């Protein structure tokens, strides 16, 4: 083989090995980070650090939230691919009347800075707190709905609002009371 070709092959192998080693080390750490992050977010948005989370039966992703034995609401995972880039995953905390207690974006790849409006605790997200399907239409005001969009981030805003609407519709199908706690 020509020295140039050989060099390229050797270099590619060396690079693959290096990345492989780093990734082997990092993978479990990243996994733990993700789990911790999600748990932290969930406890934060149900506003009850001592709550017990009981997973839904498949195929829905979510939890019944109970505190001192009584149901206080549910957590629903919602996601959409209608955003600017990739998928947006978020969690919705609903009370027993299916109104939104709080919500948080878990992962997204929207444009940093511009898509930041969907970050946890943002003013834009706060407009959804205490809303529900009975009194609100989950489309943007400019599309005939009840929620504001952010200039420059219309696609992200629209995707998010519609994701919430669909999430709420799906949530109605879930029985409100928690299952019996596992003995």
């Amino acid at each position: 083989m020509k020295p140039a070709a050989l060099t390229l092959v050797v270099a590619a192998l060396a690079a693959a090995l290096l990345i492989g080693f780093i990734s082997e080390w990092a993978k479990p750490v990243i996994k733990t980070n993700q789990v911790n992050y999600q748990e932290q977010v969930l406890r934060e948005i149900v506003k009850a650090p001592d709550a017990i989370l009981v997973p839904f039966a498949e195929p829905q992703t979510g939890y019944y939230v109970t505190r001192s034995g009584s149901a206080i609401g549910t957590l629903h995972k919602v996601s959409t691919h209608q955003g600017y880039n990739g998928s947006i995953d978020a969690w919705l905390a609903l009370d027993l009347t299916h109104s939104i207690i709080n919500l948080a974006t878990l992962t997204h790849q929207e444009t940093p800075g511009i898509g930041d409006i969907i970050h946890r605790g943002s003013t834009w997200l706060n407009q959804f707190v205490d809303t529900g399907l009975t009194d609100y239409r989950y489309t943007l005001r400019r599309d005939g709905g009840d929620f504001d969009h952010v200039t420059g981030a219309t696609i992200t805003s629209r995707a998010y609002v519609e994701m919430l609407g669909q999430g709420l519709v799906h949530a109605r199908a879930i029985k409100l009371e928690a299952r019996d706690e596992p003995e």
Partner: protein
Amino acid sequence: MNPSKSQALEGLWQNNPALVQLLGLCPLLAVSQTLVTSFTLGVITLLVLVWANAIISLIQRWLFEDIRLPLQILVIATMVTAADQLMQALFFEMHQRIGLFIALIVTNCTLLARAELFARRNRLGLAIADGFWMGLGFLWVITLLGGIREVLGRGTLLDGLSLLLGPSADHWTLVIHTSPLLIVTLAPGAFLTLGLLVALKNRMDIAHESRQANRVSDPIARRKP
């Protein structure tokens, strides 16, 4: 001037990658919305640049003409991927915010330019110094740009510091004013702010030059010979 001092001056000012070479505009403009994200991206770029320069300097005897560019890109891409993985492991929440742009550091032309123009022709020490000073030149410009855009566009400073330093830094965010200029946050604002910085730099250089010229045309200096 000794070589390390001139390298520092080159990277930080005279041949600054962001203000003079105008390289790496994509990450420079896209991530500079806030001071903290700018600083983080700047630091990662600096680290990747130092490592990439070092490795390219070490393997320079194998950088044959036909495969030089692919090999350099391979080295840079490997360093960026490693940085991306490490950041996910160590600064997960920050990665959630600017992760998309970490991968784009590969396309930051500063890296390939320094590899091609400098690292592959110079010994290890000089290549590392070049990576460091060029990286620092990029870092200070992107941090300044982020700071200006955050203050004007959002009215805050140091927002999101907790992503780096933990929740205790949450209340360090300064609220400067409450009438944000939206355009500064958007892409045009990035170009405008960078353009003003470049203009300011050129202005300072011209002022400096004319001062030097005045000194030469000074009557006492002229009488000397």
